[in-house]
């Protein structure tokens, strides 16, 4: 191919077929408030780990709902579980329980 000095980005199309419904159901079973998230980003803004790395719970929830598990895990495994996001969440989501269970269900070790 001719190099034009620029390229096209890979497709960012969302495929809902990639969603692992089983795992998603497991998450909502242990933390039903998972569905309450309105992606305001308070969690990401207050995140202690977010100061140093890309930890971002808002994005994780969004990515899981789009079936992008690997990308989601990369954004959550640096979490220090300090609990600031629980305190700032306007929807009252128990984010710590959510994070623990996301890691348990989605991250293979």
């Amino acid at each position, binding site marked *: 191919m001719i190099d034009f000095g620029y390229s096209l980005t890979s497709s960012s199309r969302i495929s809902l077929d990639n969603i692992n419904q089983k795992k998603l159901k497991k998450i909502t079973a242990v933390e039903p*408030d998972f569905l309450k998230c309105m992606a305001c980003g308070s969690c990401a803004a207050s995140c202690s780990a977010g100061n*140093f790395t890309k930890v971002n719970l808002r994005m994780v929830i969004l990515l899981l709902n789009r079936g992008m598990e690997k990308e989601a895990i990369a954004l959550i*495994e640096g979490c220090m579980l300090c609990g600031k996001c629980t305190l700032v969440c306007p929807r009252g989501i*128990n984010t710590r329980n959510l994070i*623990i269970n996301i890691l348990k269900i989605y991250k293979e070790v």
Partner: protein
Amino acid sequence: MKERLIFGYDPFVLPFTFGMVFIILYLLTGTVRIILALDNDERKLLLKSFMPATLFKTFKDIIADCLIHVQIFKKNILLGYMHFSIAFGWFMLILVGHIEVMIYTPQRNGVLYYPVFFRYFVMETHETLRGSFFFFLMDLSLLLVLTGIGLAIYKRFHSRILGMRRTTKLRLGDKIALYSLWAIFPLRLLAESFTANISGGSFLTISINHLLNAFVTNPDHILPVWWGYSWALGLFLFALPFSRYMHIPTEILLIVLRNAGIKSSVSRDGYAESEIYSCSRCGICIDACPMTSKKRNIKFSSVYFIRLLRRRSTESLATADKCLMCNKCVDACPVGIDSTRLKLLKRQEMHVRSRTDYEYLQSIENKIDATDSVLYYAGCMTHLTPAIYKSLFKILKSANIKYTFLDIDGSICCGRPLFMSGDKESAKELINKNRELIRSSGCKTLILSCPICYKFFKEEYKLDGIDIVHHSVYINNLLTSGNIKLHKGIGSFVFHDPCELGRGSGIYNEPRELLSAIGIVKEASQEKNLSICCGGSLGSLTLSFSEREQIAKSSLNSLLTNNPDKLITACPLCLKSFSTYNTIPTRDIAQIVSENLI
């Protein structure tokens, strides 16, 4: 006094004797199992504890806790008396019973049932002063036990009178043991009264004997009552291992192990097993637990957690996860069971492998230098409430103290939330990085605003040579040394003891001393070691928002009983949890001090 029956035997002794043999074998096996489950270091500790000094303390503790029940007396005098009268009275009956056998029928020494049914087997030949003394002692002890049993029966229906709002629900084993326990002593009284004209007796048994003689002239009635007494004892002894009354013998082992310095290292076996079986399921922890206000979540209180552990049920994890870890139940427990530790161990056991990745920590540079100043670590929570550290810095400036802000660009969590979630390994990584940062700064003093961090730094960080202080204590020291001066007003305050600062670290007085220099300190209905968690605790993993709200409100209720002007606390998390629901202003102790600096 001489034997009435030639062989000193009657078939009615069998239920008791079988029960006794069963329970002795059961206890022996249990003790061996617990000791086998200890590791080598723990066994060495146990051996060491048989030195005279520790042995004396153990002996003293057993008398105080198992016989006199000092801890329960402290909670409620009636409740204490109930336990004391049954335990001490019963002990006296056993002891004096043995002495009687030794003196009057030495040939029956060592016969298991003889001291228990002594009065059936003997007849009084002539009255002596010594005999009357023992009879009197026996009747007195029996009366003591009977008053206790009376109270116990009353407590079943009106537990509030004995200082308990809620008691535990009984299971079948408990019920059998309970009802047979209730039956033992009235039956004993009746049985001994029936034979009192043959064997002799004292004020209680002789009098009832006279009464009985007036109504029941047939001596054939004697034996059925003795049978009933023996059956009640037998049933109780057989039901014992399957009931909550197992704590009666097990607590002795628990005290021996505890005084040896052993702590539980797994949630079910070894020392933990002695703790689990020592739980009397009295239910004092139900009332203590902040989660149980408004009758919610009673099933998550420590007593039921321990029962689930005892049955090795997998449901115990859910209960462990729910707990706030505020330690109020541990503080209230009359047996001294560290149930929070058991819950933590349970979480650690179930958290099979760590799933976190903290590689990014390595790229954080150790560039903070605090060789000639005090070091301040805000921690995650204080970064959410920056007013606390701003106020603290104002105080430090007015006292001319140089400080360095360790985590000015955002903090690495102290690791306690992770640790409490059961992930010990991941917490270690955070500890190591923080320790490296603090060590490389060269500081001598480290000030912390968050009690959660404070407790963890003190217990797990091993920062020898560095003075770790909570800001409330530090500011109080500044005040007493005259480095800051405060304006005393007429405002009134109530101080909320954060769990990790009060029960967790034993700091109760310094914040109050500090506050009394600014205004009037009012009392809360439950404070100091009884303080109710603010509901924000990071100890709980699964508590929902609405449940936390409930806890915060009930805690506020207790705090605001004396109508203070302001609610003062010394924890950023409590500050955050309370300010949402509080009707009066909520302030951190640093804020209120900085507002009143002269």
